[in-house]
């Protein structure tokens, strides 16, 4: 029963997160994205090169991650400021953090939970990095294709 409740909780949040992601990439980058199927995340699910993590707390606790290959992140920065990074630097981390911040804020508004609070994004990068989701969450992920390259969004939530 608890598993079903947690799964429903995650399901209720999926669409707002997915819609927020598509809107954010469209408006901030002029980038059309195509989502692939929703999948359950396991410990073996690899992250891309750079990942922004943003926590939601309050009525619902959870985590949204935006993970990109470095090439996608570089092209995103290029589209925003017309400068192509050569490595994952402070500016690239800042940009990926800002994307996740906007996705999280937009998703929060669509979820319509007045008790939900949005944390500030943290950015992690490097080969084989891993991020743990809250215990009892059923983390899922969706991969996207876009004209700046692939990326994915991962999320998992539990009742507060």
């Amino acid at each position, binding site marked *: 029963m608890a598993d079903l409740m947690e799964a429903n909780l995650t399901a209720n949040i999926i669409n707002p997160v997915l819609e927020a992601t598509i*809107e*954010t990439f469209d*408006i*901030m980058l002029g980038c059309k994205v195509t989502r692939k199927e929703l999948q359950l995340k396991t410990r073996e699910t690899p992250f891309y090169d750079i990942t922004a993590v943003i926590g939601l707390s309050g009525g619902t606790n959870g985590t949204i991650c935006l993970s990109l290959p470095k090439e996608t992140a570089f092209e995103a*920065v290029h589209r*925003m*400021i*017309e400068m192509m990074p050569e490595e994952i630097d*402070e*500016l690239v981390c*800042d*940009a990926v*953090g*800002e994307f996740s*911040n*906007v996705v*999280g*804020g*937009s*998703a*929060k*508004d*669509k979820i319509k939970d*007045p008790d*939900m609070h*949005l944390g*500030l994004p943290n950015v992690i990068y490097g080969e084989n990095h891993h991020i743990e989701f809250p215990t009892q969450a059923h983390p899922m992920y969706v991969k996207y294709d876009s004209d700046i390259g692939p990326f994915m969004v991962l999320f998992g939530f539990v009742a507060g």
Partner: protein
Amino acid sequence: MNILVVDDSAMTRMVAKKTLGTLGYENVFEGEDGVQALEIFKQNSIDVIFTDWNMPNMNGLELLIEIRKINKDVPIIMITTEGSRSKVVEAVQNGISDYLVKPFTPANLKEKLSKWIGATV
């Protein structure tokens, strides 16, 4: 026209500056938090302020309150995410002029500028 953009995200400041440049506004000052922005405001003749809400050291609301102590008229436009809309009420009570929701387009920015530049002329 002197415009002050306040955001702890360097990327957001750069995008705002670039967008403002394409709209013909070249005199753009940048502050990475409220403390820095307040100093810039005191030392320059600023016509419009765009400020983020969540920032270290001094957040957007605290900056708004400090600026309103010394200037009740300068347009202050809060840049916020959708999820922070509830905070707008608190900001309005403290004298915010308007707000702009992230992600925003150049047209959104232009609309706010037109509205508030008109209001100050």
